[in-house]
């Protein structure tokens, strides 16, 4: 265990060599993974290796930041669709990963930046999803007299914004009563909030159709053309995710971002220094929630079906484990965590199940479906959470914190996470 801890602690993502060498490495690896994608059109491993391109770009510190961003954009918006546009499997996986990256970034604002443990984050996702589902299926027309029938796909775009605003409003509504609570209490109350939203979604039949759910949620449309294909959702999601990443980067160093960091490190001291606690916390809840609201709208349109089982406590914890795995507070870490957990969840466990079944079939052993590894998501999340908490609480890619010293005597600022190298 001690050896494991030593192996982990010096892990920093940093490529060797100068600018030219790094660019060459990036280009070579990109060509390699594109080849893999073409050779193995249903391989999740190929997709994972392709995703590692982004990590490589992030680790190329000798390359200027603007180039890094440009390469990342080209890799996700040009190369990947060019290679895999005709492959709904890769497009679907890419979209799902992107949605979870956005969710994790949103929750990261609440947990990673402001230090408020929110265990009911899925409530905001549900708000966005149900908002679009109710209006685009015509359910809204049943209780809103001025509506006649379902809204068309053109309405998807304003509803992206409405979903954002609605979820932000929910975030503030949750925030107001829980402002005075700390740590564990906050966690339990937000958990309760998430459950309340789910129970309401399952119980208010006249609005949400209850446990039956709402089928036939509309896909987006532009000028009469419906954008319902996997590729369309891929582009829509990625553009929004890009926007969210940009907003997050801008928020991090802003006045409010620094206020959040102050609250996270020491609420009492922050208050004494004049940080407006109420406003800063409510803004954290609202920002985090708004990302989830937008993603909810996209999710509803992509699935074309919404029901309460998509918004359980497990979903909230899944997003928390993404943040914990990747590294709280840092954008690359959170994105990495989201990608790993999503793929683990949707593909790798299922892949292991298929493998076990095929092995079992070969030897003539019937593996009962109840022992299927894909049924044990919770176990995987649980193991990730415990191991990361004990050995690497700062995550796979620890957040880079700017350290500012007042004078030579002052101690360097300590990261929020506890030292990770101390095994039990």
């Amino acid at each position, binding site marked *: 265990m001690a050896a494991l801890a030593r192996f982990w602690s010096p892990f920093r993502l940093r490529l060797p060599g100068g600018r030219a060498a790094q660019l060459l490495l990036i280009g070579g690896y990109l060509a390699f993974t594109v080849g893999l994608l073409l050779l193995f059109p249903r391989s999740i491993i190929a997709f994972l290796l392709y995703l590692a391109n982004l990590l490589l770009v992030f680790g190329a510190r000798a390359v200027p930041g603007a180039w890094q961003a440009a390469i990342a954009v080209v890799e996700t918006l040009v190369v990947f669709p060019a290679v895999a546009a005709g492959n709904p499997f890769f497009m679907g996986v890419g979209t799902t990963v992107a949605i979870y990256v956005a969710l994790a970034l949103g929750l990261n604002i609440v*947990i990673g930046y402001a*230090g408020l*443990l929110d*265990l009911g984050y899925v409530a905001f996702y549900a708000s966005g999803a149900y908002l679009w589902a109710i209006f685009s299926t015509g359910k809204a027309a049943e209780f809103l007299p001025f509506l006649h029938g379902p809204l068309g796909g053109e309405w998807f775009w304003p509803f992206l914004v409405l979903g954002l605003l609605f979820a932000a409003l929910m975030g503030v509504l949750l925030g107001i*009563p*829980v402002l*005075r*609570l700390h*740590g*564990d*209490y906050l*966690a*339990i*109350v937000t*958990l*309760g*909030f998430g*459950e*309340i939203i789910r*129970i*309401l979604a*399952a*119980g208010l039949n006249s609005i949400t159709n209850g446990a039956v759910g709402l089928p036939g949620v509309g896909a987006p449309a532009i000028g009469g053309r419906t954008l319902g294909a996997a590729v369309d959702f891929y582009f829509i999601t990625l553009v929004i995710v890009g926007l969210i990443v940009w907003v997050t980067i801008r928020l991090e160093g802003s006045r409010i971002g620094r206020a959040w960091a102050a609250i996270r490190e020491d609420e*009492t001291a922050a208050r004494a220094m004049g940080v407006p606690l109420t406003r800063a916390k409510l803004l954290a809840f609202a920002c985090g929630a708004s990302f989830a609201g937008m993603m909810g709208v996209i999710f509803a349109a992509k699935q074309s079906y919404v029901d309460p089982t998509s918004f359980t*406590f497990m979903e909230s*914890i899944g997003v*928390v*484990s993404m943040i*914990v795995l990747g590294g709280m507070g840092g954008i690359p870490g959170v994105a990495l965590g989201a990608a790993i957990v999503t793929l683990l969840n949707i593909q790798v466990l299922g892949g292991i199940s298929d493998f076990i079944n095929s092995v079992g079939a070969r030897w003539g052993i019937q593996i*009962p479906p*109840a*022992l299927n590894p894909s049924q*044990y998501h*919770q*176990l995987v*999340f*649980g*193991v*990730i*959470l*415990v191991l*990361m*908490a*004990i050995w690497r*609480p700062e995550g796979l890619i620890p957040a880079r914190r700017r350290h500012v010293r007042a004078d030579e005597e002052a101690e360097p600022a300590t990261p*929020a*996470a*506890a030292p990770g190298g101390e*095994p*039990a």
Partner: protein
Amino acid sequence: MDILPQLFLDGLVVGFVYALIAVGYTMVYGVLELINFAHGDIFMVGAFVGTEVLVALAGWGLRATADPWLALSLALLPAMAVAAALGVAVERFAYRPLRRSPRLIILISAIGVSFIIEDLVRLVETIHQGKFVLPVPTVFPDVYHVSVPGLPSPLTIKANSLVVVGAAVIMMVVLTLIVSRTRAGRAMRAVAEDPVTAALQGVDVDRIIALTFLIGSAMGGAAGVLFATQYTTITPYIGFLIGIKAFTAAVVGGIGNIPGSFLGGILLGVLEQVGGGFVGAKFQNVFAFCVLVAVLIFKPSGLLGQRVQEKV
């Protein structure tokens, strides 16, 4: 409402179960200021061990209904032992290494442990029984119908309910005696008051914390068996919701305060049943969460708790 007295009685019974679980939350919070998120799952493990014993006894030809007191004791003892061992193990491997970490990290570890226990029980039961939703053998089958003058319909009381309440009261009394009269109990109170000073007085703080987990988890395990016999079906996921409710009960009574958690449990059980009767069973769980939020906002110290000044 005609059914109000009946709801009140049902609430009382479930309230005693909540109270037994809430004690575990409150004791751990008292010494560590930590919400032991896995406690609901320790309760669940107790329920499964007890049920497995009852099933095994039936397999050996001893039907629980033939000698209910013996069957219940045989189910309770191993359930309490396993739950206690599990509680101590969880503390040792998931909480103790993190005692100096930020609260967020400990809570995350606790949630992880809770998930691991749930799915491991599911795995074990799937291998052992072929299913993970278990029916529980009946122990006390009698049902009494008591006519009370002035009430339109007679009250229905299960014999099992009386046993649940009786067992819960006995355990509460024993626990109170342990905490208030014994040497270990005094050490426990000292650690809760101030762990550093307690250590300076020669109290082995680590041992006392382990003991706290042991006692709290044993009570949780016993609550699991009582719950199983009362509600007749268990799944590996019952610990989540009931754990949250028991935690709510601990908060209502004032977290860290043992008599408070008894009071809070009974109060929450009654409120939930009666309130659920008004808003509909579908929204009954919302009711418990609303109680939690309301108490935390308006009286965060709970009914019997003391207001703790935040140290700077």
